């Protein structure tokens, strides 16, 4: 019943990609690259500085935020009290973090053991998004003896979940993605440089939706060809279905460390471009409690001075307002514009909050 719910529960569409085995689609030359550093004699007992140096030499990058993993490990060595493994795939179609967690369990656990050594803590948990209704695989309660925290509720998961937000150790924890753990493990145990990343290829136009381990630097076109297109897509997306970026030139756009998915959709052009009927649904679903409808109206009419009341800088850019809009307006884009304006004109430096950095 939609009327009692805050936020929006999305149909996840993760199958069939989620339960299929991950396929390797790699460039053999880059895949053979190794690091020029002596591997530790016993990787299971590698020292902290060894692990950090190897992570730096192998160029392991956290796919969550694009930061080098060794920097995060250095910070964690100083003050981390907990390690969270982020496998929250709350956007529809995307399962590129949860699938490696379930299918490459040994490698993830191996990487996690190394992180544990660096952070010197036993407070370790996995975080997954539970509201996946179409999955065929069950989500386990524990992985390797460590608890799996399940985020419930509507999209966007980190913003809506009190569990994630109000944990005691906020700001003093190491959050890593599953891909980074796998690559850390491979770097330490097999001296491999990170040359691949895990992505989901899905969407209404993709003939064989699946999770791939692809070489970084392959073009979007090559990846889509690997999975096959059942129809010519009108929209190709690099990133999640809610927050990703539309690809204009498929040949020139490459897979990077932080690419989580490549999605191809074909849309019905007919149901577009109605005008706003003021139904207020965007306000009902906004996780930050903003008023996207009025912000959109002011931005459309360039009444930027009126925006002071509306706190656009608190937007978390989840795209929920555009998703729910029955008139198919680009509300989220307007709010993003207003946010930029508000951060420049209304907010003193230092006043903005990093409330929802998860």
């Amino acid at each position, binding site marked *: 019943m939609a009327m009692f719910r805050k936020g929006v529960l999305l149909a996840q569409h993760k199958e069939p990609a989620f339960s299929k085995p991950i396929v390797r689609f790699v460039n053999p030359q880059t895949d053979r690259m190794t690091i020029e550093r002596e591997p530790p004699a016993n990787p299971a007992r590698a020292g902290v500085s060894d692990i950090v140096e190897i992570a730096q030499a192998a160029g392991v990058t956290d796919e969550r935020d694009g930061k080098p993993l060794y920097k995060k490990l250095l910070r964690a060595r100083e003050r981390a009290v907990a390690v969270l493994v982020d496998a929250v795939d709350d956007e529809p179609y995307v399962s590129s973090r949860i699938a490696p967690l379930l299918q490459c369990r040994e490698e993830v656990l191996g990487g996690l053991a190394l992180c544990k050594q660096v952070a010197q803590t036993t407070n370790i948990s996995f975080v997954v998004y539970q509201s996946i209704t179409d999955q065929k695989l069950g989500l386990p309660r524990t992985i390797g003896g460590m608890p799996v925290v399940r985020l419930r509720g509507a999209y966007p998961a980190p913003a809506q979940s009190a569990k994630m937000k109000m944990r005691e150790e906020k700001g003093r924890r190491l959050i890593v993605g599953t891909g980074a753990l796998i690559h850390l493990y491979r770097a330490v145990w097999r001296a491999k440089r990170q040359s691949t990343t895990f992505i989901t290829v899905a969407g209404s136009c993709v003939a064989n939706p699946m999770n791939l381990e692809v070489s970084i630097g392959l073009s979007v076109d090559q990846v889509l060809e690997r999975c096959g297109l059942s129809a010519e897509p009108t929209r190709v997306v690099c990133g999640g279905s809610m927050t990703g970026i539309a690809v204009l030139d*498929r040949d020139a756009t490459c897979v990077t460390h932080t690419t989580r998915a490549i999605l191809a959709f074909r849309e019905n052009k007919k149901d577009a471009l109605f*005008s706003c009927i003021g139904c207020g649904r965007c306000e009902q679903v906004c996780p930050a409690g903003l008023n996207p409808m009025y912000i959109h109206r002011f931005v459309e009419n360039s009444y930027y001075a009126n925006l002071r009341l509306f706190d656009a800088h608190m937007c978390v850019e989840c795209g929920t307002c555009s998703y729910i809009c*029955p008139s198919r307006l680009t509300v989220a884009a307007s709010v993003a514009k207003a946010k930029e304006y508000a951060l420049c004109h209304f907010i003193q430096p230092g006043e903005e909050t990093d409330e929802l950095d998860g």
Partner: protein
Amino acid sequence: MSLTANALYAPHIRHHENTRTVMGDVILVLVVLYIMAYMHYGLRAVALGVWSVAICVLADVAGTLMRRQRPHIRDLSAVVTGMLLPLMMPVSIPYRVVAVAAVVAVAVAKQPFGGVGHNVFNPAAAGFSFAAICFGVQMFTYPEPQQALVGAAGEEAVFLPVLGALDFVSGIAPTFTLRLGAVPQYELLDMAMGNYPGPMGATNILVILACLLYLVFRNTVRWDMPVAFFGAAFLFAYIFPRSQMDRLESVGYEMMSGLLLFAGVFLLGDPVTTPKRDLSKVAFGAVAGVVVMLFRRFGNMEESITFAILLMNATTWGFDMLGERVYGKIRRHRVEVFNSQKIQKKA
């Protein structure tokens, strides 16, 4: 690969409901009301509806073209306005009155403000108010439902003729009796079943309540506004009965007579002309309930609810801004609490 401007922005998936399905929900329940009107009054009720919809759509297209824009009949908003108008009128209403009301609704209350989504005043309420001022006699003469009538040629007809001269037995509507300060002669149960003279779509109390339930569960109408509106009207009728009768009886007659229920569901359920936030919706609904009852008590017209709603529509912006101030306080307070917790932890 062709990309429209729309295709560039995230999110790249959309909810399956669009403006058409929202309007379609309303049209669906209005069709049910037309079926009820057909049962009570015959084919003339349906013919009035078709006539009104046709004029509204034509006026809408003409208005949009005059604004040099491409008409979108597909958004169905003109159809909803057209279907609402005759349901608020008696079935004996001449076609020309419906036509005038429809033209005023679309060409005066809707299009000059910028069409769908920009109108300040509810088009149906505006059209009805105009007709009520200009054609008072025809607008407030209600035929008895389901009564054998004598046609113009003398032969006995069960229902009013669709076209041609009308000759019917008019009943005394409860709104009229209440305005005189007397007690209506109808049983409350009869009124709940819709068996009393009144506007052709607004007398089926139970059916309208079912419609409201459907719209609320479909999330087309939020539940808080009708609850606040009917709650305020209920309390007002309970505390200040208009005539010598039991308080609860007064509540029953006030709630079920005239357009109160119909307007609470369909005119206040219009998303364009009412506030958006939950809190402002509640405040707006409560104030609207009181204003409507005040209009009934001190107004000169038999049915003044549309005037009250037009008055309230003008305050929508104010309610929205007040609500935004409250929500803004809540938002900032939340952030402050969060920041202070973080500072404590750092220290």
